[in-house]
């Protein structure tokens, strides 16, 4: 468990760095963010209090020292206050994010799991049946790995939603005002989730397919796989023994992958007008809603760190060599 403790400490440090970056960036980049906000809000006059709040948030024109601003920033964060969203009716940022977060979490979470399982599974197959037609999958897979998420999303919408009409092209559900746990609602949600999820899976599975294939090829040369076959074990079992080892680098590489997948998922959400963080993000950019941008950055970072921690747990579970036993 020492490994986990070390990783946890590292994530805490990273979270601190993220908050600090959130604090520093508006102050380091040339220009006055408050002015930018004000100039964007033509026709709307803000109260003096609001403007003061903004200046405090971004460190504009304030006489407090950098350090005291920093500590003040930390105290607001720790109180759960991420600022006010000016483009969403001046409600707290946390409220806005809370509305969108479940959609993103659900979509990304489910898609990532499917992608990992499918990707590593196909990778094992391609490696095991080397020299077969499956090898021709690899260039196709390469293409999808390189294509931007939103381009695949475009194709998905154009093909499956518009031309074939199988799935809806946007949104997460019909405009029902309530979310009821009945079948109509759930099936509607699923219906709307298929294309975005498909996009994410297609774009991200490629990395795991190729990675798993490469590691499997090396693993299959190991003595213990030969012994497994020599033991007269059935073939699926032999494959399992090899895959069980080969999957480890993919799990530890999950940390890098999840960052990219989340980024890609945000872009996908935009194309599908899915009411998650992605849509919030692009609107915030357009409206210069800096507080919302900062808030989204923090939440996404924390979510990615949490996912990493889960991956670390899974790795320790899968690889007995990492367990420090007395």
């Amino acid at each position, binding site marked *: 468990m020492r490994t986990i403790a070390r990783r946890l400490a*590292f*994530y805490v*440090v*990273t979270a601190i760095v*993220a908050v600090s970056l*959130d604090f520093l*960036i*508006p102050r380091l*980049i*040339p*220009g006055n*963010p408050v002015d930018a906000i004000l100039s964007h809000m033509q026709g709307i006059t803000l109260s003096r209090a609001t403007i003061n709040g903004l200046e405090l948030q971004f460190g504009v024109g304030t006489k407090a020292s950098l350090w005291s601003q920093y500590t003040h920033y930390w105290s607001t964060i720790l109180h759960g206050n991420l600022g006010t969203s000016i483009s969403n009716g001046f409600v707290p940022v946390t409220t806005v994010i809370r509305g969108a977060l479940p959609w993103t979490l659900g979509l990304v979470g489910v898609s990532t799991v499917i992608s990992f399982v499918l990707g590593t599974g196909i990778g094992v197959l391609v490696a*095991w*049946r*080397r*020299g*077969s037609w499956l*090898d021709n999958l690899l*260039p196709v897979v*390469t*293409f999808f*790995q*390189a*294509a*931007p998420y*939103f*381009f695949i999303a*475009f*194709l998905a919408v*154009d093909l499956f939603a*518009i031309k074939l009409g199988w799935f809806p*092209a946007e949104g997460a559900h019909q405009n029902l005002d309530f979310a009821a746990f009945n079948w109509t609602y759930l099936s509607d949600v699923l219906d709307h989730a298929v294309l975005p999820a498909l996009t994410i899976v297609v774009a991200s599975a490629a990395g795991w397919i190729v*990675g*798993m294939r*490469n*590691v499997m*090829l090396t693993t299959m040369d190991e003595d213990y796989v030969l012994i497994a*076959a020599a033991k007269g074990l059935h*073939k699926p079992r*032999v494959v399992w023994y090899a895959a069980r080892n080969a999957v*480890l*680098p993919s*799990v*530890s*590489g999950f940390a*890098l*992958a999840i*960052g*990219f997948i989340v*980024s890609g998922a*945000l*872009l996908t959400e935009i*194309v599908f007008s899915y009411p998650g963080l992605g849509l919030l993000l692009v609107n*915030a*950019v357009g409206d210069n809603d*800096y507080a919302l*941008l900062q808030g989204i*950055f923090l939440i*996404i*970072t924390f979510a990615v760190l949490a996912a990493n921690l889960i991956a670390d747990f899974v790795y320790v579970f899968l690889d007995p060599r990492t367990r420090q036993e007395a």
Partner: protein
Amino acid sequence: MAVSIGTEQPVGGTDPGLPGVVLTPRRVRALRLPRSGKIQAGLGLLAFFVLVAIIGPLIAPYSPDQTFANAPVPLPPSGAHLLGTTQLQQDVLSQFLVGGRSMMLVAFISGALATVLSVLIGVTAGYLGGLVDDLLSMFTNIFLVLPALPLLIIMFGFLGRSSSNDVFIIGLIISVTGWAFGARVLRAQTLSLRNRDYVDSARIVGEKWWRIIGTEILPNLTPIVATSFLFTVLYGVGTYTALAFLGLVNPNWSWGGMLFYAQNSNAEISGYWWWFVPPGLAVALLGTALVLLNFGIDEFINPRLRAAGLTGRPRRRSRPWSGRRPEFALTAVIREGSEQ
């Protein structure tokens, strides 16, 4: 490429334990890349895009901002507009040809800068070890874990769209988020090289550290630096496209920018495929070219992958069992004179 963070070994083709031919600078020059189908395809595609970047703006039929006939919707491809028009009745082909240049510039600038950073940080950490290594590793890991796009979004968000027109600034900021992966791989490799006998003997003899790094270590890192460079260029391509798509950098003119406009006009919902397919496909193909090149180099480094049969046509005489691949744990029995 598979990446391992839990272990120290770079996975997926860079095996520091390879029975190494010591790549002295003289021998590096004599190295030629094998004629692999992958490398050739990758290079070919890449060359095509470089060409587009260079001569694109010169051969574009119209100016990209120029608007034409007053129609309410984008027009499909026709004689006058080979790739159709946009919502504002601008020529898609011209936008496409002009847009390639900024893409290539940003991608290569960010790739080059990120590679320089990763070499500096990774090799230093690996070579010096100790506290410096611990600090640099922590620094690298933090940047590795922090999700890149959200970080870039707030950086560019505060920077403002107008001031981020300069390809160099864009490339620089992108490179700040893209160096960490390469640094980690290079550090691992440097660590293993540093403990090799010939480096030890150079140290004992009293060679200056910069000479050791320059003549013993860096040449052996060449394949990894090449892979890392390609990877960061690929990252630059994707990231720049995404940033333009989000409207964080000036969309005029880049492929990501075209997609930004297309998205704003709901091109995909309305079926205006000629507007988003060319730029999207171009980005995908450019990315594919880089990935292919990377595969090719990976296979060059790790012969096991090559033997698994992905490298195009067989160079040697064909194997007698080319119809049936050998089964696992069942040694093939091919007697003289029999057909299998």
